[in-house]
């Protein structure tokens, strides 16, 4: 039987090679890039509709905590939850007996010039950094009361710091409304040393 006599069907032939492996790999990589773009689009869309979307630029846990604390302590005075207040006589006995943690909410400049003996500086204007520094002290407080003061009179810093502390889970926080003005006017002992 002669080969020349055998008919060959065109559709029985294998596909004709029109390009090499390199072209296939390049084309596959193009599709991978398309998939990556679609995935990014889906991720961004999900983030957009999320209740707590991520910012486009990453923030480390430390940066997030600082932003959260700064927002917390800057709550407008009108929106602050009322904190219990302490009068001078009671505040003085607490300072003498060291039965509470005393926090000075004024700026560090004023704190260094003079403060209530044993007080720690948790400045309203540097809250995030001071809070991180004082975290070991605050966490060791357990149920011990915390009393916050600022300049006195109409200053809001002590109330803002007290509010932030309550929002952070500290229940027993009070404010000495007379503040530094009333304490120093009463010629009570002062200190320029930082508490240990």
């Amino acid at each position, binding site marked *: 039987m002669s080969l020349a006599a055998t008919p060959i069907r065109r559709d029985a032939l*294998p596909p004709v*090679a029109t390009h090499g492996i390199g072209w296939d790999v390049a084309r*596959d*990589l193009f599709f991978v890039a398309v998939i990556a773009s679609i995935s990014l689009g889906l991720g961004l869309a999900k983030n957009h509709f999320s209740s707590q979307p*991520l910012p486009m630029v990453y923030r480390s846990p430390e940066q997030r905590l600082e932003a959260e604390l700064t927002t917390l302590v800057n709550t407008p005075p009108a929106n602050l939850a009322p904190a219990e207040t302490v009068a001078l006589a009671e505040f003085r006995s607490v300072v003498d007996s060291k039965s509470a943690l005393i926090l000075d909410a004024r700026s560090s400049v004023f704190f260094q010039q003079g403060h209530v003996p044993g007080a720690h500086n948790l400045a309203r204007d540097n809250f995030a950094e001071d809070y991180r520094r004082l975290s070991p002290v605050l966490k060791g407080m357990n149920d011990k009361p915390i009393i916050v003061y600022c300049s006195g009179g109409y200053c809001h810093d002590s109330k803002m710091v007290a509010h932030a502390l309550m929002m952070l889970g500290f229940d027993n926080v009070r404010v000495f409304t007379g503040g530094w003005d009333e304490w120093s006017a009463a010629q009570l002992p002062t200190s320029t040393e930082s508490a240990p």
Partner: protein
Amino acid sequence: MTIRNDSARNGVALIACLAIGGVFIYAGVTKISDPLHFADSINAFATLPPAVIDPLALGLPFYEIICAVLTFLPPTRRVGALALTVASLMFFIALLSALLRGLTLDCGCFGTGVPSRPRMWMELGLDFLLVGGAAAVYFHSLLRSPRSSTYVIGTPDL
């Protein structure tokens, strides 16, 4: 004999696809619900700038799931396998670099975990297997597909 070898290879490739795809679907699902922790895990590698970390944390879980699904489907298996090879290679390099730099971290590969160097070595080994498996599936599909302009995305090979 050749037909038997081919079907055996196809069977191995199918099992590899299912295993690799399963691993990536699991990895994607565990990460998709908590992109914040995944972003923290990426940041722990200390290799990428902040502007890249969050978009990567948002997009990568979808990429893993989509590619895994593509490897399950014969017409798209080749592209899916290549995509997973690229991803696994990226993870392998990142993890190896972290190990060589002496870092101890949670790679975030399968959700949140405890930073541990023995675990990092185990995950490096898993990444090595995934790179090898996905690359083998890709080249298996690539070499078996007739290179013709009539094929658009890979070739159904199973």
